[in-house]
């Protein structure tokens, strides 16, 4: 893999994976389509790519359990980054695709990445039937996304999983229009948080059958963060009660962080919460790659009487890729126990 080139490409991926590098790029969306609050999500079209927008991702995380009760986590992500707001067949395509895969055990964390350009079929997304892929990493299934198969493999790890949705797709923010800053930066954002999962993960020691819960995020935008926002902490939590919570905190150099949350009831009804209603407070940090990464958090959402602590299953879930970030499974304790995923970007080495 071309480390530097991948890093260079990532620099124009102002994504959750790249909260540091896109200051300036993020607010400059010349020629690109902008998220529109009037847009209503339509399926299966919106499961597919939106090349007129600068960035987009298909982001799946899963909390898994082995036969002996060991916790595992996997991540499968396909990013799309556009250098120009259109797609064209052949080598001249201005769309660049990046795949990230991760697998976390309580003791080890594996990560791998892939790069491809659009226009050739090496990577892409189709809607009927649904398929998103880069090389031989693949997420595919029904056009409703209700049933998916998911696979990725790298030198030292891999997984093959089957996903079954037991609830509906959930729009985030206001009908899928998710505000990211007080200045109005926003994205189109919906999730499928109700996957039941079964399959196999491959470790250097051998294959392990697993079952668990998965969460798919779909998001696209052209200018997701404000200039002064330099990193993001994001959580997706599955409570034992069957309810879910999506929350994020965008750290701001110029003031308090911007927070946003969606409470998802057991039947999939979303309740969005605007800035300030969710609080996320770091409790403990882990030193990784010269940076202090908060791997234990206090999460409070008074509107839902939620007060929990989340704790990384493996504090060293560092995605040491062209653009490094932290992404791994967490355990939830407090008045609403459960498990979930935590992602943090923009923690620079001190």
């Amino acid at each position, binding site marked *: *893999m*071309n*480390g*530097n*080139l991948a*890093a*260079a*490409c990532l*620099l*124009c991926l102002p994504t959750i994976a790249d909260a540091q590098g896109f200051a300036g790029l993020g607010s400059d969306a010349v020629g690109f389509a902008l998220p529109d609050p009037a847009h209503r999500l339509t399926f299966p079209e919106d499961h597919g790519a939106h090349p007129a927008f600068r960035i987009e991702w298909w982001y799946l995380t899963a909390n898994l359990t082995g036969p002996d009760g060991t916790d595992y986590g996997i991540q499968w992500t396909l990013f799309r*980054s556009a*250098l*120009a707001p259109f797609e064209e*067949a*052949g*080598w*001249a395509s*201005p769309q*660049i695709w990046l795949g990230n895969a991760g697998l976390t055990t309580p003791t080890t964390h594996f990560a791998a990445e892939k*790069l*491809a*350009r659009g226009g*050739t*079929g*090496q990577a892409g997304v189709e809607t009927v039937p649904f398929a998103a*892929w880069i*090389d*031989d990493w*693949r997420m595919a299934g029904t056009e409703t996304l209700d049933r998916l198969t998911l696979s990725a*493999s790298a*030198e030292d790890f891999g997984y093959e999983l089957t996903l079954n949705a037991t609830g509906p797709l959930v729009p985030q923010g206001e009908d899928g229009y998710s505000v990211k800053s007080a200045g109005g930066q926003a994205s189109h954002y919906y999730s499928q948080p109700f996957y039941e999962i079964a399959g196999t993960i491959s470790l250097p020691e051998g294959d392990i059958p697993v079952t668990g819960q998965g969460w798919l995020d779909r998001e696209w935008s052209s200018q997701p963060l404000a200039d002064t926002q330099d990193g993001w902490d994001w959580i997706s939590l599955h409570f034992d009660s069957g309810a879910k919570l999506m929350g994020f905190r965008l750290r701001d150099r110029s003031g308090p962080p911007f927070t946003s949350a969606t409470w998802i009831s057991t039947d999939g009804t979303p309740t969005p919460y605007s800035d300030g209603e969710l609080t996320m407070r770091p409790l403990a940090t882990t030193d990784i790659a010269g940076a202090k990464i908060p791997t234990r958090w206090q999460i409070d959402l008074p509107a839902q009487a939620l007060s929990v602590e989340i704790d990384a299953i493996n504090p060293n879930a560092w995605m040491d890729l062209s653009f490094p970030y932290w992404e791994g499974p967490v355990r939830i304790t407090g008045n609403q126990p459960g498990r979930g995923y935590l992602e943090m970007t923009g923690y620079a080495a001190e």
Partner: protein
Amino acid sequence: MRRTALAALVSHWRRQKLQLFALLAGLALATALWSAVQAINAEARRSYAAAAGTLGLGSYETLVDPAGPIPVESFAALRRAGWPVTPLVEGRAEIAGRRIQVIGLEFLSAPRRNLPDTLAADTLSPAEIFLPPGIGFAAPATLRALAGQPGLPRLFADPALPPDRLFTDIAVADRLLEAGSGIDRLLLLPGAPDGLPDAVVPGLRRQPAESQGDLTRLTASFHLNLTAFGFLSFAVGLFIVHGTIGLAFEQRRGMFRSLRALGLPLRTLLALLLAEILALATIAGGLGIALGYLIAGALLPDVAATLRGLYGASLPGTLAFDPAWAASGLGIALAGSLVAAAHGLDTVRRMPLLASARPRAWAIVSGRQLRRQAAAGGALLAAGALAPILADGLLAGFALLGGLLLGAALLLPLLLSAVLALGAAHARRPLAQWFWADTRQQLPGLSLALMALLLALATNIGVSTMVSSFRQTFVGWLDQRLVSELYVTAPSEAEAERLRAWLAPRAEAVLPIWKVDLPLMGAPGELYGIVDNPVYREHWPLLAATDAPWEALYAGRAALVNEQLARRNGLHPGDPVSLGAGWQLPVAAIYSDYGNPAGQAIVALPTLLEHHPEVPKLRHGILTDDPQALSRALTEEFGLPPANVTENGRLKAVSLEVFDRTFTVTAALNILTLSVAGFAILTALLTLSSMRLPQLAPLWALGLTRRRLARLEILRALALAALTFAAALPVGLALAWCLLAVVNVEAFGWRLPMTLFPDQWLRLLLLALLAALVAAALPVRRLARTEPSQFLKVFADER
């Protein structure tokens, strides 16, 4: 006391400015030569990873479609099936009236090490790289020629690229070549499965990687030779330093005695002398490193061009300063001068307090001493000769080299003395007798300088013989490898037949290059069939052959084998070689084949077809007067994919031109060592000239004019240089033989045939005489201008 002593010691250098200059210059030059060679080598080694880079795309196995370009969908299908492949398009485009070879790699999936450095430097944004006009890389000269042409990507200079080649992203290449997204080759990256991806994309053919071993071995050979050269140069420089330091010690004997008599402890004196030497060595070493850096910087572009042209190894044309390299240069300067001064220091240590202050160095060295030195030389020679017998490996080769050179140098004074004695014995006229005797008497004073000259001359002869032999072999190899102007590969046998018919009226000759891969004498090998064409006879260098090998070959009665196969199995001309089950032919000849680790044999084409009718009949070499036109016609009229046509005539010319630039390097180093030696003679003669007045005065008094005396002095310098040259010639040839037949074989497993180049010797002889003449000119001028009163004073001051 210490300060006074130091002031006294240093005052010598203040008075003997020329000697000081000689010492500093000699040591600085020696260090410069040594460190220049080291710098060049270090720079080259650093670049070998990159060497296999942009030009090393051949190091990958490839997938090709015999039917034509591979569609982009097949690439995607292979990637999606888990095959790590990266696409490459390649072809010629007419830009600015030049035929430019365009190579497009997919920058996202191509291995990092094959991408130009600029791309990795992280200074370009993805939009700059991937959006039109995109970016491209070309050799600086090509870049200049293409500047301002419309439709080109933004171009960056990359000295690692050969001329007329444009290296770019596949999207740009696709546009320039109007390739319609078709892929010429898929490079198989590490981790690719074995076999063919028939289940994913049927019909592809897997082609083996080009051998890269040769690059390493050939470049290693080049560097080893450079290192040997640097080492020899340093040895020459050390002789000068030894001579100068020895002289300085001798001339200060009186001063040492006085200082000691005044109460300076021996230990302090030695410490002061040591400090003096180290200080001088540090200054000279520093100068030498700076000078070496300049030399290396001046030569590096040539070396870079040589390596690139010869071996396809890329080397940046600029030199990076490396502190380790500078430290090693300084270290060797210090160590060298300590070695050179060791004898002098030892003499001081042993010197009795009240020893005579008379300079001893210029007295006639006793015959016994001369013989003792010669015995040491003989012992060194013998030890050197024994080394390869007693030990194996490169070290033995170098021991042989060292023994040979040092031994010969130590033997030189005795040899010269004997020759001069012989001359004296045959001289009849008094003046001639005096000339011989006087020359012989001066020998001790000059012997160090002459030894340095011997080493310089021998090194020159040795190295240029080696380089020229190497060149001749290389030219032969090039001719053999690139005997045809064009190489074409037909996509299928039917196409090949059509191609031969199409070519018949258009080309001088079409030479099939058909081979089968088969085990030869138990190891993987290749068997080729060739047609009877004069180019083979004329161009293929045969290392050993029976009588009329070509006739036997074409009659189907014999086979040719490459050196590798012959060496591995101890084959000699006439021996039988097994070419498969129940098929044996005698070896008609052995040919050199440096580009190939595998064993190889050649038989006549009909013979090959008889035994292997199934041989793929796709590849052909074409002899033609106008390869460019024919190559164009092949792609445009006949419709062959450009990747299937290789134009080699131009490549050969470029390779040779570039190889000849090696000679710039060697010639420059040659002249530098020779000037170092010439300088040694100059300093020795200068020192002698001032001391020789008492010996010349009587002759002047007997009626010899100053002019005549001066002429005799010149004659003497020339005679000594010529004699030294005569002694250096066999030493140099032995050195060349040693490099080609011992060191090369030990290091690389093959022997380069040695060729003699008498015209080079003649040139060198003239150069040596010129050096002696220049060296003698100044002292002689001084002699010719010496006031008669000075001569008279000799008698007045007679001791």
